[in-house]
């Protein structure tokens, strides 16, 4: 109806809305604590809630938001009753207040959209509460009084205004005074303060040899008396003091000095209550508050006026920008430092300045980081309400305990935690905590407990959500998963309880029917898991059947800053987020064979009786690496890298993928020093890198557009040195390398499977190097029989007749092409570079010419000798569309020896 009033929000309104939101936020926990304490609720709390609702009303009134102000008025009335001890807090009362609260929140959210919502239901339930709260006697009293006062009220309505002290001591509780509206308005317009003052005859007047007239004179000298009990109809002689309302320009301490009256007996007033019922209240006797209490108690009961929060609102973007700039400052400082070291060394002034810059820079950076942090209670506080509501709805009794409320997390993280944590808590109440009867039967305390514990550890926030409910039955989870076809039958017996429970993370596990059957958890746990991994966090479940469940979340402090281990492979450095790292293994040069095994063509690391699949970073990323030359001991570029490049272009890679690097001669020269064991959910795998560096806190920047599609990187970052570094994406690397973990496949399982596979294999495993001679004839030799490979330029060949020699370590080495041994097309040397293969165990210096090295492959195919194969050929195998003749090493080397011997004869 008045939507147009608040559908375009000007700056002023939005300021008010922000305040209203703040007040709303502080209201909810108050209401919940009030419920908890019930009749014993303390006044501070009620007052606080009352103040919140009151300022909401004020704000709503200011921006002319009638619905909100109407509803808040209704809620205020209820709280007023509570404050006056006329209404005892019960769950019903809190229900009504909370529903009102929810509607208010909705209203505020809808603001600016032009929509409004009615609040009839809430109003009604609030009114019902009001009626219910007032005992009949009081009601009668009120009615009588209302009648009595009505005439007067109607008469005075236009000219009188009710005012109400805020804060001050106990004597002001529930007091309201009627003052002349015009005079009040006038005073306020003249920037005067309006105070309610309680003057005690004995202490304030008699003790200071004053009388009433004298004090009235005093007051009049500094301001106006708007209201005085002495003048009113209720003026009584038997009281110990009287109230008056005065308007003055003096502030509270000064006023107290002038009048020689204690500050606690004065309070600023507020004018809000204009309806006849509240006007009336000013005249109603307040049981228990009639007599001003002795001074001692007054001090004790004193209500401090609320300290204004020391905060300002800042746009998040601005903070982000500031944070980036601060990072820049750090970088500039880092760059300046070596410069200063070089040019101003020993200059004490410069050193001092540098130190100052250091301190200030670090401080700025830390402070700005903290600006983005929010205490976890901002999120977790909400769950008190969630727990209460759900528990009430399904009539269970649940307590909620929050530990570590002040643990701070980046606000982005906090926002993204809301969804998964809500889910987990819902599960706790719904499926974890048993019904009251069940709990009694199990001789557990009737009220279940859900606790959230948050703490910092190792640069991460740990959040443990636990309940003392039924726990998860691993057997039931397993059978459900089996029914759904999520677990193969042969694995049913091999899973540990923990692994069985982890099955609930599998997508597709959750349907409502299952949950009730299991009476454990399982609603969309895969979604929870996904959400947590998006935060680069981890989730673990621990559950004991019948005793409860513990969900452990490990979340990075901020999304933007990730402590990472810097590693290198070849010439490139990479960052691995620390959260993914389980441990780092150093491979001792001599014992590599004992630590790393080669099973069914894959490298696995044996560590504490477990096997971890091992990947090599340089192979994954195709980084140029270097191997040690057998003879010279110098580093040479890994030649097979060249082959890999060529392979990409010829695109004939599928079959060759079987090739794993560990199987060949390089195994003896493992140039990778460290294996980093990485965590991927419940699975682990090893990643080989060359060197380790520091752990640095890197700021993750998303991948630029051109390289967004790269799976192996999570982003890029700038190191302290100013260099750009790529951040590895561990799940990406695993999927890129086709590590096929599923949540149930454990290392043990893998191991047994691998063993089975090994025994199944009939053929002997062979690593072959495949090369071509001429255009399309392919040959293979076993890798173990090859001494070395060498690229040769045709210009390096020296001829003696038809014999070809190559100089190697100042010795002449004979080279033969394949067609000199076998039925093969004649090899004609062009200008292209080719390779010389030097076999092992050969008495003469001789090698064979390969026009191209295709690849090394691993095969367990049984190589069948057929009738067409010559004596020194083991047989033929097919790789893709190539027919490869596998040479028999022994026979072939003797052939070479023979050939070389006859060649000498020829010369």
């Amino acid at each position: 109806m008045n939507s147009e009033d608040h559908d375009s929000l000007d700056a002023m309104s939005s300021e008010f809305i922000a305040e209203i939101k703040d007040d709303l936020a502080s209201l909810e926990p108050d209401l919940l604590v009030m419920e908890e304490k019930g009749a014993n609720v303390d006044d501070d709390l009620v007052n606080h809630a009352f103040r919140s609702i009151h300022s909401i009303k004020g704000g709503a009134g200011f921006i002319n938001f009638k619905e909100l102000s109407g509803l808040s008025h209704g809620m205020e009335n209820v709280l007023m009753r509570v404050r006056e001890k006329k209404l005892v807090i019960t769950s019903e009362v809190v229900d009504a207040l909370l529903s009102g609260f929810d509607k208010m929140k909705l209203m505020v959210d809808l603001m600016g959209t032009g929509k409004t919502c009615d609040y009839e239901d809430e109003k009604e339930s609030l009114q019902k509460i009001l009626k219910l709260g007032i005992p009949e006697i009081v009601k009668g009293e009120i009615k009588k009084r209302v009648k009595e006062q009505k005439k007067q009220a109607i008469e005075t309505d236009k000219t009188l205004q009710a005012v109400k002290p805020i804060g001050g001591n106990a004597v002001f509780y529930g007091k309201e005074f009627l003052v002349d509206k015009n005079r009040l308005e006038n005073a306020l317009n003249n920037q005067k303060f309006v105070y309610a003052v309680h003057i005690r005859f004995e202490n304030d007047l008699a003790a200071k040899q004053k009388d009433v007239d004298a004090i009235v004179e005093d007051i009049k000298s500094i301001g106006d008396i708007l209201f005085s009990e002495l003048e009113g109809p209720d003026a009584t002689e038997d009281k110990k003091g009287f109230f008056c309302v005065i308007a003055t320009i003096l502030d509270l301490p000064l006023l107290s000095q002038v009048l020689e009256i204690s500050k606690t007996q004065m309070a600023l007033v507020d004018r809000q209550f204009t309806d006849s019922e509240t006007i009336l209240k000013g005249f109603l006797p307040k049981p228990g508050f009639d007599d001003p209490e002795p001074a001692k108690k007054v001090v004790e009961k004193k209500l401090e006026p609320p300290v204004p929060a020391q905060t300002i609102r800042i746009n998040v973007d601005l903070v982000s920008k500031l944070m980036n700039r601060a990072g820049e400052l750090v970088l500039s400082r880092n760059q300046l430092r070596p410069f200063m070291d070089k040019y101003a060394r020993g200059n004490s002034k410069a050193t001092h300045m540098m130190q100052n810059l250091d301190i200030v820079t670090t401080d700025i950076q830390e402070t700005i980081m903290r600006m983005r942090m929010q205490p976890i209670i901002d999120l977790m506080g909400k769950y008190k309400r969630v727990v209460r509501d759900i528990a009430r709805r399904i009539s269970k009794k649940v307590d909620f305990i929050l530990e570590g409320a002040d643990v701070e997390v980046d606000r982005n993280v906090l926002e993204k935690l809301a969804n998964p944590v809500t889910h987990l808590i819902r599960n706790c109440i719904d499926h974890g905590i048993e019904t009251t009867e069940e709990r009694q039967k199990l001789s557990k305390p009737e009220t279940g407990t859900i606790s959230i514990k948050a703490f910092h550890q190792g640069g991460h926030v740990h959040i443990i959500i636990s309940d003392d409910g039924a726990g998860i039955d691993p057997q039931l989870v397993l059978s459900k998963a089996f029914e759904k076809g999520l677990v193969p039958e042969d694995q049913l017996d091999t899973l540990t309880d923990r692994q069985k429970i982890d099955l609930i993370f599998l997508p597709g596990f959750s349907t409502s029917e299952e949950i009730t059957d299991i009476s454990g958890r399982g609603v969309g746990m895969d979604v929870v898991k996904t959400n947590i991994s998006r935060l680069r966090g981890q989730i673990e479940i621990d559950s004991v059947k019948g005793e409860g469940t513990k969900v452990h979340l490990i979340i990075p402090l901020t999304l933007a800053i990730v402590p990472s281990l810097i590693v290198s492979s070849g010439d490139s450095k990479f960052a691995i987020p620390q959260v993914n790292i389980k441990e780092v293994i150093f491979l001792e040069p001599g014992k590599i064979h004992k630590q790393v095994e080669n099973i069914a063509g894959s490298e696995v690391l044996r560590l504490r009786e477990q096997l971890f699949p091992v990947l090599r970073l340089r192979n994954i990323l195709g980084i140029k690496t270097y191997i040690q030359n057998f003879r010279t001991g110098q580093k040479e570029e890994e030649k097979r890298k060249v082959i890999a490049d060529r392979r990409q272009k010829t695109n004939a890679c599928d079959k060759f993928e079987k090739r794993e690097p560990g199987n060949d001669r390089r195994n003896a020269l493992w140039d990778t020093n460290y294996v980093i064991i990485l965590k991927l959910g419940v699975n682990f795998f090893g990643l080989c890198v060359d060197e380790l560096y520091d752990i640095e806190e890197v700021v993750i920047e998303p991948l630029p557009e051109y390289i967004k599609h790269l799976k192996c990187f999570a982003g890029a970052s700038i190191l302290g040195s100013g260099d750009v570094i790529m951040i590895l994406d561990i799940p990406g690397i695993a999927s890129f390398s086709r590590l096929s973990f599923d949540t149930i496949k454990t290392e043990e399982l893998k191991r047994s499977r691998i063993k089975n596979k090994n025994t199944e294999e009939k053929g002997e495993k062979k690593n072959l190097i495949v090369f071509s001679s001429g255009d399309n004839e392919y040959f293979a030799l076993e890798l173990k029989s090859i001494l070395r490979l060498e690229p040769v330029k045709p210009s390096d060949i020296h001829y003696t007749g038809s014999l070809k020699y190559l100089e190697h370590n100042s010795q002449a080495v004979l080279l033969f092409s394949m067609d000199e041994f076998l039925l093969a097309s004649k090899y004609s040397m062009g200008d292209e570079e080719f390779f010389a293969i030097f076999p092992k165990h050969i008495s003469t210096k001789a090698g064979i010419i390969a026009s191209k090295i295709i690849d090394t492959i691993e095969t367990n195919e049984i190589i069948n000798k057929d009738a067409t194969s010559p004596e020194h050929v083991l047989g033929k195998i097919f790789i893709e569309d190539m027919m490869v003749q596998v040479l028999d090493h022994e026979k072939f080397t003797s052939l070479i020896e023979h050939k070389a011997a006859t060649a000498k004869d020829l010369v």
Partner: protein
Amino acid sequence: MDLSKSNNKSRYITFRLADNLIGINILDIREIIPDIKITKVQQAPEFVLGLISLRGQILTIIDIGVMLGLESRIVHSGTHIIIFKHKDAGFIVDQIGDVIGVDQKYIESIPANINHDIQKYMENIINLPEEALMILNAEKVLSYTETHDETAKESP
């Protein structure tokens, strides 16, 4: 008509890629920096040379030479990086030249016989007294996406 148009002069930064003299409108450029350390990105398309950090910003450095079908750049002392104004990216050039102002009337369309790969990314050509200057179209360059089979590259 605003002043710049009535002036009828556009200003171009000239540079060399291999032997080609190429220009790019100065309005498309944020800055020119001497060659700094480029972090290689493994598995990236061939035209992506890597990433650099410029005052806390990560920029992608591309090799326009690869797009134009020239051989890939080798970084040497004359190498400079030109940073685009409207995108966090830059490209390296073999040699940086002058900034020249050219009257609109000297601007001609690209001769039809120029390699199509090059033509794609050029706006027009300026017939300078000594040498023809090809003008690069920044927008077209930036919208370049690798057409080669990336999946082949990604496989291990």
